[in-house]
């Protein structure tokens, strides 16, 4: 996923509405370098209200891991697709095969700490998360085991929009940049173009989730979401 510009990875809950895959090309066109697609889980313990609601809506629509992956296998967007989901779904036997068959490029499991990495079948790039509370040596170790990029959690909180980028985001990105050569993507609470720009001054890019999903939940279509993502793109460039 190395690019010569700052990386922008928007997030979308798979199955959020029947036309959800239509958002993917719109995101790519708006300047996304990769897309994080969430497979909704019944108990998203690290998500704030927005993505919780998105998960609930998607599940109520009848979304299953298979339906998301089937849809992804048919999409034609040519940027990497990273799937994120909770451990209970990610550790199921055959999950890696399903991801690969769907052409998925990587995996994020927010409730999978370093110690449990072996529980995930080999053969998929597993990106790990580091939090502001993670001690230096542990952060180092996580970065070494992470594949594709390192997910820097901006603050001690769940996912969700914020008014300001917490200082902890810059601290953590700086620490990680000094510790690894992997791309560092900052996520959690990146809600405004200014947050993205600020984070990217240190990090290699940002992940934008709740700010997008709130718009989608409020009825925004691919075009409108694309416009919003484009403002993020502009701020990063």
């Amino acid at each position, binding site marked *: 996923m190395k690019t010569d510009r700052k990386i922008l990875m928007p997030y979308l809950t798979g199955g959020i509405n029947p036309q959800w895959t239509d958002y993917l090309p719109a995101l790519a066109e708006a300047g996304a370098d990769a897309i994080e697609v969430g497979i909704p889980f019944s108990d998203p*313990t690290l998500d704030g209200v927005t993505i919780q609601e998105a998960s609930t809506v998607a599940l109520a629509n009848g979304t299953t891991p298979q339906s998301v992956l089937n849809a992804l296998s048919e999409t034609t967007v040519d940027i990497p697709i990273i799937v994120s989901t909770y451990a*209970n779904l990610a550790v199921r036997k055959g999950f890696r095969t399903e991801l690969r068959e769907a052409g998925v490029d990587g995996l994020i499991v927010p409730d999978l*700490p*370093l110690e449990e990495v072996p529980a995930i079948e080999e053969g998929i790039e597993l990106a790990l998360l580091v939090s502001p*509370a993670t001690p230096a040596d542990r952060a180092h170790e996580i970065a070494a085991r992470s594949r594709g990029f390192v997910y820097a959690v901006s603050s001690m909180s769940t996912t969700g929009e914020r008014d300001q980028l917490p200082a902890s985001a810059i601290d953590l990105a700086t620490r990680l940049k000094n510790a690894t050569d992997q791309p560092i993507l900052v996520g959690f609470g990146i809600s405004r173009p200014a947050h993205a720009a600020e984070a990217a001054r240190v990090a290699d890019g940002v992940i934008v989730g709740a700010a997008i999903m709130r718009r989608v939940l409020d009825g925004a279509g691919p075009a409108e979401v694309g416009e919003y993502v484009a403002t993020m793109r502009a701020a990063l460039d």
Partner: protein
Amino acid sequence: GRFGEYGGRWVPESLVPACLEVADAFEKAWVDPGFREQLQTMLARHVGRPTPVTPAERLSAELGVTVALKREDLTHTGSHKINNAVGQALLAKRMGKQRLIAETGAGMHGVATATAGALLDLPVTVFMGEQDVERQSHNVFRMRYLGAEVVPVRSGSRTLKDATSEAMRHWVSSTEEAHYCLGSVVGPHPYPWMVREFQRVIGDEAREQHVTVPDFVVACVGGGSNAAGTFAGFADTSARLVGVEAIGGSGATSGQAGVLHGSRSLFLQDEHGQILEAHSIAAGLDYPGVGPEHAHLRDLGRAQYVAVNDEAAVAAAARLARTEGIIPALESAHALAWVAEAAGTPDLPAGSTVLLTLSGRGDKDITTLIARAEESRA
């Protein structure tokens, strides 16, 4: 932190340092005679330990098996939850934490944590599913009266599972100042181990109070803390251990291996891996999973897990009231229901001796029992 293939510490990285801190603090405290004595004093003076073992003579005569009840209903606040809440509150104080977070289902752990917080001057925030807030209003008022903040949780099934998720979310943003006082033998390491250790006072006392080892040791299982604490006292005996679940929350009986709330264990889930909502008349058993140690004991065959339905539990509660003058919590009534059903069958042969942990008193369930009684009259 592992019980066979179960357990672990499946939490977001943001919670890993906090879990490590709790594990480290508990490990040190648990071997510190000063801490043990402080806890022991508080359990004796404030909680009313030891609790007695009551021979249930009239019930035994009816069933043809000799039943004795370990009376956790007689503890301060009325359930075994206080053993763990006091232990963790003392630990939190020792760790220098300024407040407590808890989740609660029936409200007993919430009341216990609110109580321990009042006693040790630690503010308490309790997360409770909105449905439980409604059906356990008595306990909601008790918590608030004790000074705790009760936060209704409106997500998912609006019961214990969702309250636990919300408590974990809240903990993520407050690990520095707050201790998460988890109420059962679930969650990430060290919780399943720590909570069992704080609850083993039940089993240890009962073992000492019993002249001979009973043939069966029976307890109800939601997350499974009273059962884990009871079983711990009889692990090295020949007693057959039986955990009784609610049929609508039978993680150990009909769950599959999975990961939730920080540990790998057995959970009710659909074919896709989505966690199912539990349904039980007993709010404290209304949880789709079971603690990892129970999953392991089941695999080992050391403990046996069975499930009974709402009707059987309601009938067993009424029976204990009429024969022994004890109104049990609906949770404990499940354990009684299994004994009543199994007595005289090969599962529980006539003449057996049974130690059953009465995890709590039924005052909290009075409105439910009234409604049931009215229904059955209609």
